[in-house]
């Protein structure tokens, strides 16, 4: 515990740790989300190949929204790191 405190007491280390934790925690949810989205999208393309372009457009749209959540955390992490 003391070792952890000593590491975090250094301002630079605290910065690195908080940035790493921010992006690691935020990459988890959108990662699952995008995986689920694409799997469902491919499934429906397989079921109805004629609707390929329509499904793909809405899938990419959904991915963009999901990815935005991770990007928020990425921006926060970058701000912590390079401020």
């Amino acid at each position, binding site marked *: 515990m003391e070792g952890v405190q000593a590491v975090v007491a250094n301002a630079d280390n605290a910065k690195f740790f908080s940035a790493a934790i921010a992006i690691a925690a935020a990459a988890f949810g959108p990662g699952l989300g995008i995986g689920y989205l694409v799997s469902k999208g491919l499934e429906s393309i397989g079921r109805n190949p004629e609707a390929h372009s329509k499904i793909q457009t809405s899938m990419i749209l959904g991915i963009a929204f999901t990815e935005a959540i991770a*990007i928020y955390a990425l921006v926060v992490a*970058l701000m912590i790191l390079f401020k």
Partner: protein
Amino acid sequence: MEISIVAEPLFSIAGFTVTNSLFMAIVVSFFGFIAVFLLIQPKKFTMVPKGAQNVIEAIFEGLLSFMEGITQNRRQATQFFPLVATIFLFVLFSNWSGLLPGAGTIGLHEMNGGKVMFIPIMRSPSADLNMTVALSLISVFSVQLFGILALGLRGYASKFFVAPWKAPYVVGTAVGLLELIGEGAKVLSFSFRLFGNVFAGEVLLTVMLSLVPYLVPLPFLVMELFVGVVQAGIFSLLTIVFLKMATAEHEAHEAHEAH
């Protein structure tokens, strides 16, 4: 390895600071203008396209048919085309301008508060939050404008302000207000998405370049080219979708009654 999240100031004209990303934005727009003047000469255009005209027509037709696929309406597609195509082309070339040789690596050493700072001359305009916020404000404001033009002020406002004593009662009012907040959140998500992707790409390239200077950054450069296209596509795609949503009639009631 020096990375700055804000664009570095290059010089200032009468108190107006020109940052390196603003400089690049001007360069990109300048080349855009040149390209327009050189390539688009209606007098030289022929019925059967050849050469440059062929390429331009292919690009514009691709964009237009892509937009038509989303709006399902030729008239609307041509109405939105100038805005969306401009956004697409500008964002695309801004993203790519950060990948030019020398971007982020050629610069000046300047004294700043007793410290020597490295100031690159070229920086992608999309890697500056100011530019992406400005672009998303343009996009969101035009969405409101097109919505008002299509539905009238009353019709458009009725999307957000629902009287609590009508059909879905308080729920409708709350949903309307949430949608109003959502309009503001669009600016945030638009700007952060573009900025985050492009700036993260630049950081990634810088880190890779400092770890292994030869060959290893190459696949990442290719990936950044791809990310540039995808982000430009997403920015314009979302603009079209929001435009389409804003200009669509209020369907909730009709759907409700149909059931």
